[in-house]
Protein backbone atom coordinates (compact mmCIF):
# COMPACT_ATOMS: atom_id res chain seq x y z
CA UNK A 1 0.00 0.00 0.00
CA UNK A 2 1.19 3.47 -0.81
CA UNK A 3 0.62 6.05 1.84
CA UNK A 4 -0.63 9.54 1.07
CA UNK A 5 1.72 12.15 2.32
CA UNK A 6 0.45 15.70 2.63
CA UNK A 7 -3.28 16.21 2.52
CA UNK A 8 -4.56 19.41 0.97
CA UNK A 9 -4.92 22.22 3.49
CA UNK A 10 -8.29 24.01 3.48
CA UNK A 11 -7.75 27.53 2.17
CA UNK A 12 -10.41 30.23 2.44
CA UNK A 13 -10.66 33.49 0.54
CA UNK A 14 -7.02 34.37 -0.09
CA UNK A 15 -6.46 37.72 -1.78
CA UNK A 16 -3.17 36.30 -3.06
CA UNK A 17 -5.12 34.00 -5.38
CA UNK A 18 -6.70 37.03 -7.09
CA UNK A 19 -3.60 39.19 -7.61
CA UNK A 20 -1.52 38.01 -10.55
CA UNK A 21 2.26 38.24 -10.12
CA UNK A 22 3.83 40.78 -12.42
CA UNK A 23 1.64 43.84 -11.87
CA UNK A 24 3.30 44.91 -8.63
CA UNK A 25 6.84 44.75 -9.93
CA UNK A 26 5.93 46.40 -13.24
CA UNK A 27 4.52 49.32 -11.27
CA UNK A 28 7.52 49.47 -8.93
CA UNK A 29 9.92 49.67 -11.87
CA UNK A 30 8.27 52.91 -13.01
CA UNK A 31 8.58 54.52 -9.57
CA UNK A 32 11.54 56.26 -7.90
CA UNK A 33 12.82 54.26 -4.93
CA UNK A 34 11.57 56.77 -2.39
CA UNK A 35 8.03 56.56 -3.78
CA UNK A 36 7.93 52.79 -3.28
CA UNK A 37 8.79 53.24 0.39
CA UNK A 38 6.26 56.07 0.72
CA UNK A 39 3.55 53.86 -0.76
CA UNK A 40 4.30 51.01 1.69
CA UNK A 41 4.46 53.51 4.58
CA UNK A 42 1.15 55.00 3.47
CA UNK A 43 -0.47 51.55 3.48
CA UNK A 44 0.59 51.19 7.15
CA UNK A 45 1.56 47.59 6.43
CA UNK A 46 2.92 45.98 9.59
CA UNK A 47 5.10 42.88 9.74
CA UNK A 48 2.99 39.73 9.43
CA UNK A 49 5.39 37.50 11.34
CA UNK A 50 3.89 38.62 14.63
CA UNK A 51 5.97 41.51 15.92
CA UNK A 52 4.12 44.02 13.76
CA UNK A 53 6.91 46.47 12.98
CA UNK A 54 5.91 48.94 10.23
CA UNK A 55 7.42 47.65 6.99
CA UNK A 56 7.79 51.08 5.38
CA UNK A 57 9.76 52.37 8.37
CA UNK A 58 12.07 49.34 8.32
CA UNK A 59 12.73 49.83 4.62
CA UNK A 60 13.33 53.52 5.13
CA UNK A 61 16.03 52.84 7.73
CA UNK A 62 17.77 50.40 5.41
CA UNK A 63 17.46 52.68 2.40
CA UNK A 64 19.10 55.49 4.38
CA UNK A 65 22.18 53.36 5.09
CA UNK A 66 25.08 54.16 2.82
CA UNK A 67 27.07 50.96 3.29
CA UNK A 68 26.92 48.34 0.56
CA UNK A 69 26.07 45.64 -0.21
CA UNK A 70 22.66 45.44 1.41
CA UNK A 71 20.64 42.29 1.86
CA UNK A 72 16.95 41.50 1.81
CA UNK A 73 16.06 38.37 3.74
CA UNK A 74 12.78 36.52 3.61
CA UNK A 75 12.04 34.88 6.95
CA UNK A 76 10.55 31.51 6.03
CA UNK A 77 11.45 29.92 9.35
CA UNK A 78 7.81 29.44 10.26
CA UNK A 79 8.31 27.63 13.55
CA UNK A 80 5.67 29.12 15.82
CA UNK A 81 3.45 26.23 16.95
CA UNK A 82 0.14 26.30 15.15
CA UNK A 83 1.39 28.39 12.22
CA UNK A 84 1.37 27.07 8.66
CA UNK A 85 0.14 29.97 6.51
CA UNK A 86 3.64 30.62 5.15
CA UNK A 87 3.80 27.01 3.97
CA UNK A 88 0.63 27.63 1.95
CA UNK A 89 1.90 30.96 0.59
CA UNK A 90 5.23 29.41 -0.43
CA UNK A 91 3.46 26.46 -2.04
CA UNK A 92 0.74 28.34 -3.93
CA UNK A 93 1.95 31.94 -4.25
CA UNK A 94 5.75 31.84 -4.23
CA UNK A 95 5.78 34.19 -7.23
CA UNK A 96 4.21 36.96 -5.15
CA UNK A 97 6.77 36.45 -2.36
CA UNK A 98 9.69 36.63 -4.78
CA UNK A 99 8.10 39.66 -6.39
CA UNK A 100 7.76 41.32 -2.98
CA UNK A 101 11.45 40.64 -2.36
CA UNK A 102 12.37 42.15 -5.71
CA UNK A 103 10.30 45.27 -4.96
CA UNK A 104 11.94 45.53 -1.53
CA UNK A 105 15.37 45.17 -3.11
CA UNK A 106 14.55 47.98 -5.50
CA UNK A 107 13.38 50.17 -2.62
CA UNK A 108 16.36 49.69 -0.31
CA UNK A 109 19.03 49.01 -2.94
CA UNK A 110 19.74 45.38 -2.03
CA UNK A 111 21.96 43.30 -4.27
CA UNK A 112 21.17 39.89 -2.89
CA UNK A 113 18.11 38.26 -1.40
CA UNK A 114 18.10 35.23 0.84
CA UNK A 115 15.20 33.00 1.73
CA UNK A 116 15.79 31.28 5.07
CA UNK A 117 13.63 28.18 4.77
CA UNK A 118 13.10 26.02 7.85
CA UNK A 119 14.49 22.49 7.63
CA UNK A 120 11.03 21.06 8.20
CA UNK A 121 10.00 22.59 4.86
CA UNK A 122 13.04 21.26 2.97
CA UNK A 123 10.70 19.60 0.48
CA UNK A 124 9.67 23.11 -0.68
CA UNK A 125 13.22 24.09 -1.65
CA UNK A 126 13.17 22.61 -5.17
CA UNK A 127 9.83 24.33 -5.83
CA UNK A 128 11.18 27.71 -4.71
CA UNK A 129 14.30 27.27 -6.79
CA UNK A 130 12.16 26.49 -9.84
CA UNK A 131 10.15 29.67 -9.34
CA UNK A 132 13.36 31.68 -8.96
CA UNK A 133 14.87 30.08 -12.07
CA UNK A 134 11.72 30.77 -14.09
CA UNK A 135 11.81 34.42 -13.07
CA UNK A 136 15.50 34.62 -14.01
CA UNK A 137 14.59 33.28 -17.44
CA UNK A 138 11.97 36.03 -17.76
CA UNK A 139 14.47 38.71 -16.81
CA UNK A 140 12.72 39.38 -13.50
CA UNK A 141 15.79 38.41 -11.48
CA UNK A 142 19.44 38.80 -12.33
CA UNK A 143 20.95 41.71 -14.23
CA UNK A 144 19.02 44.78 -15.40
CA UNK A 145 15.72 43.48 -14.07
CA UNK A 146 12.72 44.32 -16.23
CA UNK A 147 15.06 46.17 -18.58
CA UNK A 148 15.94 48.74 -15.92
CA UNK A 149 19.63 49.38 -16.32
CA UNK A 150 21.66 48.80 -13.17
CA UNK A 151 18.89 47.07 -11.23
CA UNK A 152 20.63 43.80 -10.35
CA UNK A 153 19.19 41.46 -7.77
CA UNK A 154 19.22 37.72 -7.26
CA UNK A 155 17.91 35.30 -4.67
CA UNK A 156 19.31 32.19 -3.01
CA UNK A 157 17.52 29.74 -0.75
CA UNK A 158 19.21 28.71 2.50
CA UNK A 159 17.97 25.88 4.69
CA UNK A 160 17.61 26.03 8.45
CA UNK A 161 18.54 23.04 10.54
CA UNK A 162 15.80 22.69 13.12
CA UNK A 163 15.81 25.54 15.62
CA UNK A 164 12.70 27.56 16.57
CA UNK A 165 14.80 30.48 17.82
CA UNK A 166 16.13 31.07 14.29
CA UNK A 167 12.82 32.73 13.46
CA UNK A 168 14.11 35.59 15.62
CA UNK A 169 15.73 37.87 13.08
CA UNK A 170 19.18 38.23 14.62
CA UNK A 171 19.37 34.50 15.39
CA UNK A 172 18.37 33.89 11.77
CA UNK A 173 21.29 36.04 10.64
CA UNK A 174 23.69 34.17 12.93
CA UNK A 175 22.46 30.92 11.40
CA UNK A 176 22.88 32.22 7.84
CA UNK A 177 26.43 33.23 8.74
CA UNK A 178 27.18 29.70 9.93
CA UNK A 179 26.94 30.18 13.69
CA UNK A 180 24.74 28.82 16.45
CA UNK A 181 21.34 30.46 16.26
CA UNK A 182 21.85 32.71 19.25
CA UNK A 183 20.18 36.15 19.09
CA UNK A 184 22.34 39.26 19.05
CA UNK A 185 22.00 42.30 21.21
CA UNK A 186 20.01 45.07 19.58
CA UNK A 187 20.95 47.80 18.78
CA UNK A 188 22.55 47.74 16.33
CA UNK A 189 19.46 46.59 14.48
CA UNK A 190 19.82 44.51 11.32
CA UNK A 191 18.85 47.49 9.15
CA UNK A 192 22.17 49.01 10.25
CA UNK A 193 24.26 45.88 10.79
CA UNK A 194 22.73 42.57 9.79
CA UNK A 195 23.92 39.74 7.56
CA UNK A 196 27.74 39.88 7.36
CA UNK A 197 27.37 43.12 9.35
CA UNK A 198 25.82 44.88 6.38
CA UNK A 199 22.43 46.65 6.31
CA UNK A 200 19.77 43.96 6.05
CA UNK A 201 16.01 43.89 5.99
CA UNK A 202 14.26 40.79 7.28
CA UNK A 203 10.60 40.44 6.29
CA UNK A 204 8.12 37.64 6.85
CA UNK A 205 6.86 35.61 3.87
CA UNK A 206 3.33 37.00 4.17
CA UNK A 207 4.54 40.60 4.51
CA UNK A 208 6.42 40.31 1.22
CA UNK A 209 3.41 38.85 -0.58
CA UNK A 210 1.29 41.77 0.66
CA UNK A 211 3.95 44.18 -0.63
CA UNK A 212 3.43 42.85 -4.15
CA UNK A 213 -0.37 43.23 -3.74
CA UNK A 214 -0.10 46.77 -2.40
CA UNK A 215 2.06 47.82 -5.34
CA UNK A 216 -0.46 46.29 -7.72
CA UNK A 217 -3.63 47.63 -6.12
CA UNK A 218 -2.61 50.68 -4.12
CA UNK A 219 -2.41 51.74 -0.50
CA UNK A 220 -6.07 52.83 -0.29
CA UNK A 221 -7.24 49.41 -1.42
CA UNK A 222 -5.14 47.85 1.37
CA UNK A 223 -6.33 50.31 4.02
CA UNK A 224 -9.97 49.78 3.12
CA UNK A 225 -10.01 46.75 5.42
CA UNK A 226 -8.71 46.29 8.94
CA UNK A 227 -8.61 48.82 11.77
CA UNK A 228 -6.99 52.26 11.96
CA UNK A 229 -3.65 51.01 13.26
CA UNK A 230 -3.88 47.41 11.98
CA UNK A 231 -4.64 47.96 8.34
CA UNK A 232 -5.40 45.28 5.83
CA UNK A 233 -6.17 41.62 5.99
CA UNK A 234 -4.27 38.81 7.67
CA UNK A 235 -3.79 35.12 7.11
CA UNK A 236 -4.67 32.86 10.00
CA UNK A 237 -3.53 29.30 10.56
CA UNK A 238 -6.37 27.60 12.38
CA UNK A 239 -5.95 24.23 14.08
CA UNK A 240 -7.02 22.35 17.17
CA UNK A 241 -10.57 21.52 18.25
CA UNK A 242 -12.61 22.94 15.40
CA UNK A 243 -14.64 21.50 12.54
CA UNK A 244 -12.82 23.28 9.70
CA UNK A 245 -9.10 23.82 10.35
CA UNK A 246 -7.10 25.50 7.60
CA UNK A 247 -5.72 28.80 6.37
CA UNK A 248 -8.18 31.71 6.46
CA UNK A 249 -7.91 35.32 5.48
CA UNK A 250 -9.79 37.85 7.63
CA UNK A 251 -9.54 41.60 8.09
CA UNK A 252 -7.81 42.76 11.25
CA UNK A 253 -10.35 43.65 13.92
CA UNK A 254 -12.32 40.42 13.68
CA UNK A 255 -13.47 39.22 17.10
CA UNK A 256 -12.41 35.83 18.35
CA UNK A 257 -16.07 34.78 18.50
CA UNK A 258 -16.60 35.68 14.83
CA UNK A 259 -13.47 33.81 13.85
CA UNK A 260 -14.53 30.71 15.80
CA UNK A 261 -17.90 30.73 14.06
CA UNK A 262 -16.19 30.70 10.67
CA UNK A 263 -13.98 27.76 11.53
CA UNK A 264 -16.53 25.72 13.45
CA UNK A 265 -15.07 26.11 16.91
CA UNK A 266 -17.97 27.89 18.67
CA UNK A 267 -17.95 25.71 21.77
CA UNK A 268 -14.26 26.30 22.53
CA UNK A 269 -13.28 26.81 26.14
CA UNK A 270 -10.24 28.86 25.21
CA UNK A 271 -8.15 29.88 22.22
CA UNK A 272 -4.38 30.02 22.11
CA UNK A 273 -3.75 33.10 19.96
CA UNK A 274 -0.26 33.68 18.59
CA UNK A 275 1.15 30.19 19.05
CA UNK A 276 3.15 28.95 22.00
CA UNK A 277 4.46 32.47 22.64
CA UNK A 278 0.97 33.96 22.48
CA UNK A 279 -1.87 34.40 24.91
CA UNK A 280 -4.49 31.94 26.02
CA UNK A 281 -7.84 33.72 25.68
CA UNK A 282 -10.72 32.29 27.76
CA UNK A 283 -14.34 32.09 26.60
CA UNK A 284 -15.26 35.20 28.63
CA UNK A 285 -12.96 37.30 26.43
CA UNK A 286 -14.07 36.00 23.02
CA UNK A 287 -15.43 39.44 22.16
CA UNK A 288 -11.90 40.78 21.95
CA UNK A 289 -10.52 41.76 18.59
CA UNK A 290 -7.51 40.37 16.80
CA UNK A 291 -5.29 43.32 15.95
CA UNK A 292 -1.98 44.80 17.00
CA UNK A 293 -3.78 47.10 19.46
CA UNK A 294 -5.84 44.37 21.18
CA UNK A 295 -4.86 40.70 20.76
CA UNK A 296 -1.88 40.50 18.40
CA UNK A 297 -0.90 37.38 16.49
CA UNK A 298 1.39 36.16 13.75
CA UNK A 299 -1.59 34.13 12.62
CA UNK A 300 -1.63 31.09 14.86
CA UNK A 301 -5.04 30.16 16.26
CA UNK A 302 -5.21 26.93 18.26
CA UNK A 303 -8.76 26.15 19.35
CA UNK A 304 -8.97 24.49 22.76
CA UNK A 305 -12.13 22.42 23.16
CA UNK A 306 -14.23 22.03 26.32
CA UNK A 307 -12.69 18.69 27.27
CA UNK A 308 -9.08 19.86 27.38
CA UNK A 309 -7.04 20.04 30.55
CA UNK A 310 -5.41 23.48 30.77
CA UNK A 311 -2.57 22.21 32.91
CA UNK A 312 -1.66 19.77 30.16
CA UNK A 313 -1.79 22.61 27.65
CA UNK A 314 0.65 24.61 29.83
CA UNK A 315 2.84 21.53 30.18
CA UNK A 316 3.01 20.96 26.43
CA UNK A 317 3.88 24.60 25.72
CA UNK A 318 6.57 24.79 28.40
CA UNK A 319 8.16 21.52 27.25
CA UNK A 320 8.41 23.18 23.86
CA UNK A 321 10.22 26.22 25.28
CA UNK A 322 12.58 24.19 27.45
CA UNK A 323 13.56 22.32 24.30
CA UNK A 324 13.83 25.37 22.06
CA UNK A 325 15.50 27.92 24.35
CA UNK A 326 18.90 28.57 22.79
CA UNK A 327 20.43 28.57 26.27
CA UNK A 328 22.35 31.77 25.78
CA UNK A 329 20.71 33.88 28.50
CA UNK A 330 19.97 32.62 32.00
CA UNK A 331 16.38 33.80 32.57
CA UNK A 332 15.18 31.88 29.53
CA UNK A 333 17.40 28.80 29.88
CA UNK A 334 16.64 28.24 33.55
CA UNK A 335 13.33 30.07 33.82
CA UNK A 336 11.48 27.84 31.39
CA UNK A 337 12.81 24.73 33.11
CA UNK A 338 11.63 26.08 36.47
CA UNK A 339 8.17 26.87 35.08
CA UNK A 340 7.89 23.37 33.63
CA UNK A 341 8.92 21.92 36.96
CA UNK A 342 6.26 24.10 38.60
CA UNK A 343 3.57 22.72 36.27
CA UNK A 344 4.69 19.21 37.13
CA UNK A 345 4.43 20.10 40.82
CA UNK A 346 0.90 21.37 40.20
CA UNK A 347 0.10 18.09 38.49
CA UNK A 348 1.48 16.19 41.43
CA UNK A 349 -0.36 18.41 43.90
CA UNK A 350 2.82 19.57 45.59
CA UNK A 351 2.88 23.21 44.54
CA UNK A 352 1.99 25.63 47.36
CA UNK A 353 0.21 28.91 46.63
CA UNK A 354 3.28 30.69 47.84
CA UNK A 355 5.53 28.90 45.37
CA UNK A 356 3.01 29.62 42.63
CA UNK A 357 3.30 33.33 43.33
CA UNK A 358 7.10 32.96 43.24
CA UNK A 359 6.73 31.41 39.79
CA UNK A 360 4.64 34.40 38.76
CA UNK A 361 7.47 36.65 39.86
CA UNK A 362 9.83 34.54 37.80
CA UNK A 363 7.56 35.03 34.76
CA UNK A 364 7.81 38.79 35.21
CA UNK A 365 11.58 38.59 35.46
CA UNK A 366 11.79 36.47 32.31
CA UNK A 367 9.55 38.87 30.40
CA UNK A 368 11.67 41.85 31.38
CA UNK A 369 15.25 40.62 31.24
CA UNK A 370 15.40 37.88 28.61
CA UNK A 371 17.55 38.82 25.67
CA UNK A 372 15.15 38.03 22.84
CA UNK A 373 11.50 37.53 22.09
CA UNK A 374 11.60 33.84 22.94
CA UNK A 375 12.34 34.32 26.63
CA UNK A 376 10.26 37.49 26.78
CA UNK A 377 7.12 35.69 25.61
CA UNK A 378 7.51 32.04 26.65
CA UNK A 379 5.78 32.59 30.00
CA UNK A 380 2.85 34.58 28.58
CA UNK A 381 0.65 31.55 27.92
CA UNK A 382 1.42 30.07 31.35
CA UNK A 383 0.46 33.37 33.03
CA UNK A 384 -2.78 33.71 31.09
CA UNK A 385 -3.71 30.11 31.95
CA UNK A 386 -2.99 30.82 35.64
CA UNK A 387 -5.09 34.00 35.46
CA UNK A 388 -8.08 32.50 33.76
CA UNK A 389 -8.16 28.90 34.87
CA UNK A 390 -6.80 29.02 38.40
CA UNK A 391 -9.70 27.06 39.86
CA UNK A 392 -9.29 24.30 37.32
CA UNK A 393 -5.55 24.15 37.85
CA UNK A 394 -5.52 24.26 41.63
CA UNK A 395 -8.66 22.13 41.94
CA UNK A 396 -7.25 19.35 39.83
CA UNK A 397 -4.07 19.08 41.81
CA UNK A 398 -3.11 15.51 42.51
CA UNK A 399 -5.56 13.92 40.09
CA UNK A 400 -2.76 12.80 37.84
CA UNK A 401 -1.84 10.09 40.30
Amino acid sequence: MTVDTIIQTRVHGLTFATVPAGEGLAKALTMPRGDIIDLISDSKLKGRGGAGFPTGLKWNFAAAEKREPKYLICNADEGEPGTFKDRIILTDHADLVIEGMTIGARAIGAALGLIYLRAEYAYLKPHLEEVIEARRAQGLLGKDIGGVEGFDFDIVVGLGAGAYVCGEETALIESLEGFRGEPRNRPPFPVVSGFLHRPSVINNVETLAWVACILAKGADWFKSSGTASSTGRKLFSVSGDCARPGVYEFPFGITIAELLEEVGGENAKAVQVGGASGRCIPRSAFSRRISFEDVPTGGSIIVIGPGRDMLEVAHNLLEFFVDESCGQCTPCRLGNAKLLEGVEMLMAGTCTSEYLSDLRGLCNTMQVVSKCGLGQTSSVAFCSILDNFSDEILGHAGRYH
Partner: protein
Amino acid sequence: MALITERDRLRDDVMAIAELTGFNRSSLIPILQEVKAKYGGIDSYAMQLIADVLDIHPVEVYGVATFYAFLRPETEGRYIFRLCRTLSCDFAGKDLVARQLKEDLGLDFGETSADGAFTLTWTNCLGMCDQGPAMLVNDRVYTQLTPTKVRAIVDEYRTLVEEQGVQRVSERGR
Protein backbone atom coordinates in the same frame (compact mmCIF):
# COMPACT_ATOMS: atom_id res chain seq x y z
CA MET B 1 42.86 0.78 3.57
CA ALA B 2 39.09 0.97 3.76
CA LEU B 3 39.39 3.65 6.39
CA ILE B 4 41.56 5.83 4.18
CA THR B 5 39.14 5.44 1.29
CA GLU B 6 36.23 6.53 3.49
CA ARG B 7 38.16 9.56 4.68
CA ASP B 8 39.13 10.48 1.13
CA ARG B 9 35.50 10.27 0.13
CA LEU B 10 34.52 12.55 2.99
CA ARG B 11 37.17 15.08 2.03
CA ASP B 12 35.99 15.02 -1.59
CA ASP B 13 32.40 15.59 -0.46
CA VAL B 14 33.28 18.48 1.82
CA MET B 15 35.46 20.11 -0.83
CA ALA B 16 32.75 19.71 -3.46
CA ILE B 17 30.20 21.64 -1.37
CA ALA B 18 32.71 24.28 -0.34
CA GLU B 19 33.56 24.81 -4.03
CA LEU B 20 29.87 25.58 -4.60
CA THR B 21 29.13 27.66 -1.54
CA GLY B 22 32.53 29.24 -0.96
CA PHE B 23 35.31 28.63 1.53
CA ASN B 24 33.77 30.82 4.19
CA ARG B 25 31.93 30.53 7.46
CA SER B 26 28.50 30.80 5.81
CA SER B 27 29.19 27.45 4.17
CA LEU B 28 29.42 25.66 7.50
CA ILE B 29 25.75 24.73 7.86
CA PRO B 30 25.30 23.62 4.21
CA ILE B 31 28.41 21.43 4.60
CA LEU B 32 27.16 19.95 7.87
CA GLN B 33 23.77 19.29 6.28
CA GLU B 34 25.36 17.43 3.41
CA VAL B 35 27.65 15.38 5.65
CA LYS B 36 24.77 14.54 7.96
CA ALA B 37 22.54 13.49 5.04
CA LYS B 38 25.22 11.37 3.44
CA TYR B 39 26.93 9.81 6.44
CA GLY B 40 24.15 9.84 9.04
CA GLY B 41 26.33 11.59 11.59
CA ILE B 42 29.21 14.01 11.99
CA ASP B 43 32.11 12.37 13.81
CA SER B 44 35.13 14.12 15.28
CA TYR B 45 37.22 13.38 12.19
CA ALA B 46 34.60 15.07 9.99
CA MET B 47 34.47 18.05 12.34
CA GLN B 48 38.25 18.47 12.23
CA LEU B 49 38.26 18.15 8.46
CA ILE B 50 35.49 20.74 8.00
CA ALA B 51 37.29 23.07 10.41
CA ASP B 52 40.50 22.75 8.37
CA VAL B 53 38.69 23.41 5.11
CA LEU B 54 36.97 26.53 6.46
CA ASP B 55 39.97 27.61 8.53
CA ILE B 56 38.08 27.75 11.83
CA HIS B 57 38.56 25.97 15.15
CA PRO B 58 36.96 22.52 15.37
CA VAL B 59 35.10 23.51 18.52
CA GLU B 60 33.20 26.02 16.38
CA VAL B 61 32.04 23.15 14.19
CA TYR B 62 31.09 21.13 17.25
CA GLY B 63 29.19 24.08 18.71
CA VAL B 64 27.10 24.51 15.56
CA ALA B 65 26.49 20.80 14.97
CA THR B 66 25.21 20.28 18.50
CA PHE B 67 22.98 23.37 18.41
CA TYR B 68 20.63 22.31 15.63
CA ALA B 69 18.11 19.48 16.02
CA PHE B 70 18.62 18.30 12.43
CA LEU B 71 22.42 18.20 12.66
CA ARG B 72 22.90 15.88 15.61
CA PRO B 73 26.50 14.61 15.41
CA GLU B 74 25.56 11.10 16.62
CA THR B 75 25.12 8.62 13.80
CA GLU B 76 21.41 8.20 13.18
CA GLY B 77 19.42 5.79 11.06
CA ARG B 78 19.10 5.81 7.28
CA TYR B 79 15.49 6.90 7.85
CA ILE B 80 14.80 9.31 10.69
CA PHE B 81 11.20 9.29 11.93
CA ARG B 82 10.40 12.62 13.61
CA LEU B 83 6.97 12.74 15.22
CA CYS B 84 5.56 16.18 16.06
CA ARG B 85 4.69 16.57 19.73
CA THR B 86 3.43 20.17 19.72
CA LEU B 87 -0.04 21.23 20.88
CA SER B 88 -2.21 20.71 17.78
CA CYS B 89 -0.70 17.32 17.02
CA ASP B 90 -1.04 16.46 20.71
CA PHE B 91 -4.77 17.30 20.54
CA ALA B 92 -5.05 15.23 17.36
CA GLY B 93 -3.79 12.11 19.12
CA LYS B 94 -0.02 11.97 18.79
CA ASP B 95 0.29 9.64 21.82
CA LEU B 96 -1.49 6.76 20.08
CA VAL B 97 0.66 7.25 17.01
CA ALA B 98 3.78 7.39 19.16
CA ARG B 99 2.93 4.07 20.78
CA GLN B 100 2.39 2.41 17.42
CA LEU B 101 5.67 3.80 16.06
CA LYS B 102 7.53 2.44 19.07
CA GLU B 103 6.01 -0.99 18.58
CA ASP B 104 6.42 -1.20 14.83
CA LEU B 105 9.97 0.14 14.77
CA GLY B 106 10.93 -1.67 17.94
CA LEU B 107 12.54 1.54 19.21
CA ASP B 108 12.00 4.00 21.98
CA PHE B 109 12.14 7.74 21.24
CA GLY B 110 15.76 8.80 20.89
CA GLU B 111 16.93 5.36 19.77
CA THR B 112 18.49 4.09 16.55
CA SER B 113 18.10 0.50 15.37
CA ALA B 114 21.17 -1.74 15.54
CA ASP B 115 21.21 -2.22 11.76
CA GLY B 116 21.39 1.56 11.25
CA ALA B 117 18.10 1.62 9.35
CA PHE B 118 15.82 3.67 11.62
CA THR B 119 15.88 6.42 14.22
CA LEU B 120 12.77 7.44 16.15
CA THR B 121 12.68 10.90 17.67
CA TRP B 122 10.31 13.68 18.75
CA THR B 123 10.28 16.98 16.95
CA ASN B 124 8.59 20.32 17.50
CA CYS B 125 5.89 21.89 15.33
CA LEU B 126 6.17 20.79 11.69
CA GLY B 127 3.65 23.34 10.41
CA MET B 128 1.11 20.65 9.59
CA CYS B 129 -1.16 21.62 12.47
CA ASP B 130 -4.40 21.45 10.46
CA GLN B 131 -3.76 17.81 9.62
CA GLY B 132 -2.10 16.31 12.67
CA PRO B 133 -0.73 14.10 13.94
CA ALA B 134 2.16 14.71 11.57
CA MET B 135 5.66 13.34 11.15
CA LEU B 136 8.69 13.69 8.93
CA VAL B 137 10.63 10.73 7.58
CA ASN B 138 13.83 12.37 6.36
CA ASP B 139 12.42 15.18 4.15
CA ARG B 140 9.04 13.57 3.51
CA VAL B 141 5.93 14.64 5.42
CA TYR B 142 3.13 12.33 6.58
CA THR B 143 -0.06 13.74 8.04
CA GLN B 144 -3.34 12.66 9.66
CA LEU B 145 -1.54 9.66 11.06
CA THR B 146 -3.38 6.78 12.64
CA PRO B 147 -1.96 3.59 14.10
CA THR B 148 -3.04 1.77 10.91
CA LYS B 149 -1.24 4.27 8.70
CA VAL B 150 1.88 4.01 10.84
CA ARG B 151 1.97 0.28 10.19
CA ALA B 152 1.77 0.81 6.43
CA ILE B 153 4.44 3.53 6.43
CA VAL B 154 6.88 1.47 8.50
CA ASP B 155 6.30 -1.49 6.17
CA GLU B 156 7.13 0.68 3.17
CA TYR B 157 10.43 1.76 4.69
CA ARG B 158 11.28 -1.78 5.76
CA THR B 159 10.82 -2.86 2.15
CA LEU B 160 13.06 -0.01 1.01
CA VAL B 161 15.77 -1.07 3.43
CA GLU B 162 15.50 -4.69 2.26
CA GLU B 163 15.83 -3.62 -1.38
CA GLN B 164 18.44 -0.88 -1.07
CA GLY B 165 20.15 -1.47 2.25
CA VAL B 166 21.14 1.39 4.50
CA GLN B 167 23.61 2.96 2.06
CA ARG B 168 22.96 6.70 1.84
CA VAL B 169 22.79 8.95 -1.12
CA SER B 170 22.43 12.66 -0.68
CA GLU B 171 18.77 13.58 -0.79
CA ARG B 172 19.11 17.30 -1.02
CA GLY B 173 19.56 18.29 -4.62
CA ARG B 174 22.27 20.86 -4.87
